[in-house]
């Protein structure tokens, strides 16, 4: 039974980290109706810069705000150079623009910091928590718990801001109808800047969590791929949706790996989320919490 809990908790915690990556997508999707292909590249760029600054001799608490500032700048520049000239263009155009952006961001990151794989020490070991192990005999990684906590707090704060305040309202308004948003005086450009900057910061946090676990390397770009099924299951427009979906995906893939894996030779983790996503697309294409798609005839 303890083993079951270990697997479940481990799965849920890594699920929160998926949610965190997916959150970056949702923010931008909600505001500009575009699937930001560059989100994975931003995760990579953010954490690579962070490690880079630390290698230059900055300590952790200096490197962190410096990188946050850098990501805000990246967000603002992206909005200025890529998004603003394309306001009002079709979604396909925007999608292509973000694909291009992804290559640019990946390229710039490697040009600036090199291509070698780096370690990121957060001072939290990827080892079982002593207290839990001693008292309940459950082994849960400290890093998982810390990542889960940080991600949980970030998700909660962002969810509140975007559902309860005028910034969130402005965001939804902009996503819904650009022209109307402008005519009621919603500061479209400011909203887009805030969104891209926030997405940059979210990318940094996600990158740090994943980087601490699996090393800071180009493969982090692929973390964004894992966010896809989370987005499809949760619904592209729903912040609570991606939280729940992240948990489902995390728990499901770990459970399946441990309990079903042996029968099929393992590797379930790699594909189960995508199978779940396809099932959702068949049964409930708008996702768990997405806006229901209604077409009037």
């Amino acid at each position: 039974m303890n083993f079951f809990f270990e697997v479940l908790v481990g799965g849920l915690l890594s699920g929160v980290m998926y949610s965190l990556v997916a959150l970056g997508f949702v923010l931008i999707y909600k505001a500009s109706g575009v699937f930001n292909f560059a989100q994975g590249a931003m995760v990579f760029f953010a954490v690579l810069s962070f490690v880079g600054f630390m290698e230059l001799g900055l300590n952790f608490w200096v490197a962190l705000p410096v990188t946050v500032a850098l990501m805000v700048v990246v967000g603002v520049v992206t909005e200025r150079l890529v998004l603003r000239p394309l306001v009002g263009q079709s979604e396909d155009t925007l999608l292509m623009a973000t694909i291009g952006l992804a290559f640019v961001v990946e390229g710039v990151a490697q040009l600036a910091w090199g291509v070698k794989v780096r370690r990121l020490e957060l001072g939290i070991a990827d080892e079982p928590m002593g207290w839990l192990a001693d008292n309940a005999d459950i082994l849960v990684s400290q890093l998982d718990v810390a990542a889960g906590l940080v991600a949980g707090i970030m998700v909660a704060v962002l969810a509140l801001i975007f559902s309860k305040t005028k910034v969130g309202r402005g965001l939804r308004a902009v996503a819904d109808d650009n022209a109307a948003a402008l005519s009621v005086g919603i500061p479209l450009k400011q909203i887009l800047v805030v969104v891209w900057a926030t997405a940059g910061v979210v990318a940094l946090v996600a990158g740090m969590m994943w980087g601490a676990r699996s090393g800071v390397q180009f493969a982090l770009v692929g973390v964004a791929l894992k966010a896809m099924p989370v987005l499809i299951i949760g619904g592209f427009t729903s912040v609570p949706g991606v939280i729940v979906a992240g948990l489902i995906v995390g728990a499901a893939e770990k459970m399946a790996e441990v309990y079903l894996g042996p029968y099929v030779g393992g590797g379930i983790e790699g594909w189960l989320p995508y199978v779940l996503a396809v099932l959702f697309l068949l049964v409930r294409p708008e996702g768990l919490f997405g806006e229901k798609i209604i077409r009037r005839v």
Partner: protein
Amino acid sequence: MDMATHDHAHGDDMSTTQRGFAIGKPILELDSVSLRFGGVKALTNISFNVLEHEIRAIIGPNGAGKSSMLNVINGVYRPQEGTITLRGQKLTDMTPNRAAAMGISRTFQNIALFKGMTVLDNIMAGCSQREHANFLEVAFQLPRARREETANREKVEEIIEFLQIEHIRKTPVKRLPYGLQKRVELGRALAAQPKILLLDEPMAGMNIEEKQDMCRFILDVNDHYGTTVVLIEHDMGVVMDLSDRVVVLDYGKKIGDGTPEEVRSNPEVIKAYLGVAD
């Protein structure tokens, strides 16, 4: 629709002669405005003014340039020639955002509400112009952000009550019937407490009862808040009944300007609307 129906709709006390605010000086002046899209002349050399607190109608056959006119005032289109003066200030680089900041609100011919949002959120979004708290103040819910939100909420409730849409406050706009959506859009425009309200065919596609309601709301807004109204409308009955003065456009040119009676007896206007039998 004849005039009798309208008088019945909003009662005699609403007649334009006994309003809360007397018609004042010009608030908006257009001087020789021309707008072209490539080779297409949408507007040619148009001049007219709008007086403070009046209801000014722009009429004309389909394709006359009415919506283009509104879009020029609103800053969606920038005319190649001519000047627009708003409250004594010449406007050279108007944008929709800037128009909003200068007290111009509008509704659209094809409703442009935020469809996924509730009625309340839509109208709250209309308050954007009067909010000054920045992102960080909002994120941390500092006093100014909270104060603004509360004040706006009160104002919005007043508008909701005024438009009699209390019962649909929390309904997502896309689920509402057309007539109510038009009303919510008016509410969103009012939330900005505009000096000038631009209405692009506020009564298009409505049944008689809905039209009467909308007429009443427009007159009430003008009467209670003194809001200057510029409206485009097809229904001649509505125009004659609502407006103080009328501009008539045809093929992008101004062919008439004056009180409803003057315009109605203008031979050019009659020709444009009915054609000539020769």
